[in-house]
């Protein structure tokens, strides 16, 4: 009975997700322009893609953004949660303040940080007006560090949620464990690292998935903050896909790029899923 009830869901998943994905991959081997047409060109689109400077820059940016965002989100999120977990006063207030940015869309976040990081109006200007006239902080106008300007905004927006999830995980740890650790004379930081964190594995998996999906779809933040500039220094793959498909009317090229994105996600997901679900069977 349960299987019959699940049929509509399975069909939808197969047709919409798997079907749509396969269709995209198949048409990435065509020279489709504005409308999908089945004139096959083999691997031409991929060849062009990997010869395009903008795509290479996009991939590099995604790597930098991804690795930094993963590490900093987890570390900052966990440290904030651990600090809040010390039974401090006004915990609710702090929690709300830190979670608040998450209520804003990436577009708003991007615009806000565009102003904050603008050298003529934002941080640089404030510090200079305090007397430090040679102070320079204009990440959004410097090709070499622009991606970190975007990273700051992304962390500001996303870390709050990670912190709340971590805090929930910490609260789920039995108080008896803390007591036992204290009786054994284990220092607090050791308890966190060797006892609490391994126990919080499910929470870490959840946050990891949330952060990873946030990384792959980073698009609106870039559009709002820099629109890929200065030059092409802050382009990301999702923006390349959007631009080629909808602005440049080159579906084939856009499909090829999105297939590469899918492949990248698969390379990360498949080993992880194998470890995660494969090991459970053996248990």
């Amino acid at each position, binding site marked *: 009975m349960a299987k019959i009830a699940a049929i509509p869901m399975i069909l939808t998943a197969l047709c919409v997700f798997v079907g749509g994905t396969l269709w995209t991959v198949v048409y990435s081997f065509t020279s489709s322009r504005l409308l999908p047409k089945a004139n096959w060109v083999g691997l031409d689109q991929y060849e062009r893609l990997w010869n395009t400077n903008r795509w290479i820059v996009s991939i590099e940016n995604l790597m930098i953004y991804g690795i930094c965002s993963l590490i900093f989100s987890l570390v900052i999120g966990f440290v904030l949660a651990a600090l809040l977990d010390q039974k401090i006063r006004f915990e609710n207030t702090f929690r709300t303040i830190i979670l608040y940015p998450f209520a804003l869309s990436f577009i708003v976040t991007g615009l806000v940080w565009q102003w904050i990081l603008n050298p003529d109006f934002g941080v640089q200007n404030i510090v200079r007006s305090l007397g430090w006239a040679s102070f320079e902080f204009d990440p959004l106008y410097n090709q070499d560090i622009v991606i970190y300007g975007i990273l700051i905004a992304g962390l500001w927006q996303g870390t709050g949620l990670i912190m709340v999830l971590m805090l929930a995980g910490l609260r789920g740890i039995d108080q008896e464990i803390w007591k036992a650790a204290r009786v054994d004379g284990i220092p607090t930081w050791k308890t966190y690292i060797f006892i609490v964190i391994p126990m919080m594995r499910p929470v870490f998996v959840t946050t990891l998935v949330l952060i990873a999906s946030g990384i792959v779809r980073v698009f609106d933040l870039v559009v709002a903050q820099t629109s890929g500039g200065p*030059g092409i220094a802050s382009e990301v793959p999702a923006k390349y896909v959007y631009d080629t498909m909808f602005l440049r009317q080159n579906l084939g090229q856009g499909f090829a790029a999105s297939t590469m994105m899918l492949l990248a996600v698969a390379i990360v997901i498949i080993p992880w899923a194998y470890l995660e679900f494969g090991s459970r069977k053996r248990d």
Partner: protein
Amino acid sequence: MKSFRSLLCGTAMCAAGAAHAVDLEVTHWWTSGGEAAAVAEFAKAFNEMTEHTWVDGAIAGSGGVARPIMISRITGGDPMGATQFNHGRQAEELVEAGLMLDLTDVAEAEGWRDIVHPVSLLDSCTIDGRVYCVPVNIHSWQWIWLSHAAFAQAGVPVPTNWDEFVAAAPKLRESGIVPLAMGNQPWQASGAFGVITIALAGPEAWAAVSVDKDAEVAAGPVYAKVFEAAAAAREMRQGSNVQDWNQATNLVITGKAGGQIMGDWAQGEFQVANQMAGSDYSCLPGLGVNEIISTGGDAFYFPKQSDPDVEAAQKELASLMLSKEVQVAFNLKKGSLPVRGDVDLAAANDCMKKGLAILAQGNILPDANQTLSPDTLGQIEDLMTEFWADSSISAADAQERYADIIANAD
């Protein structure tokens, strides 16, 4: 129940009454002050001179935002009554897929081929001998706008051509003025490059590359000069840290920058700021070197609909947009040039008159939008964005990559 029945009756009556009068939704991306005023002229004429009603479907943002929305509505089976595109190849595939209304009968009955000037505008609406769109205005890119105040401050006379401008640049720099204002939006860089090309390489070389896609010319010595000039212009724009084109125009208006290479839509900004052409600012078509303008601009397409009444209304609107009175009223508000040579634009300002004179002499080129596909233009735009932002890319490297794009262009 009663009210429901009367509602039903009302709907039925409406349906019967609407057999001739049609609500026609028109989508476009004209939302700034002057643009909205201009499109209101279309709406007014349509509402007053026909029995149909203009339903305004303005899409905020820019063409880049609006076009995907329009295209997805047309391909998704929810076509609007009429829609704006730029002259050229943006809607080419939609026409080929049979999604656009064929206007050939209207065009032949009214003799569009005789009245549209330059006739190349009609050619870019024509596919396989059938006419699919109505050109409504001409916008040209080939202008440089110069601030008299900035040059007075630097103590140099206002240049009359590009070479004088380049020569005056160091003086401007010394007085703390940015010689060349340019925003960071990608299209501004590739547009300015196009203008420099036509001015320095000349129309023949430009046509060889942009129309005939001759990669050898693109890699040759004539274009090498253009890339050298663009690299020099890249130095001149250092310090204009603005995003939007109108912010860059504002640097010129306030005398913080010497000049800006920008299309004729920039003069709307000067007008709003109460600047007088000739005394506060100058405009040099073709950078004062080759007085030639390209004939880009906007055209309206009419997506195919099943209802014959709607089709009739679409054709009425098409012929209305090209009529003399509407052309004058619309283009004066828009600051663009009319698409027919037989109308009187006495109210035009100095810069517009210069443009009209060049148009009358026939010194015109097609716009790159008409000759290259959006895909190729996008690749050029990427290259230009990179080149203008990163001074470590040499002119020769950029030229090589440019020639490569042209070799693969379609």
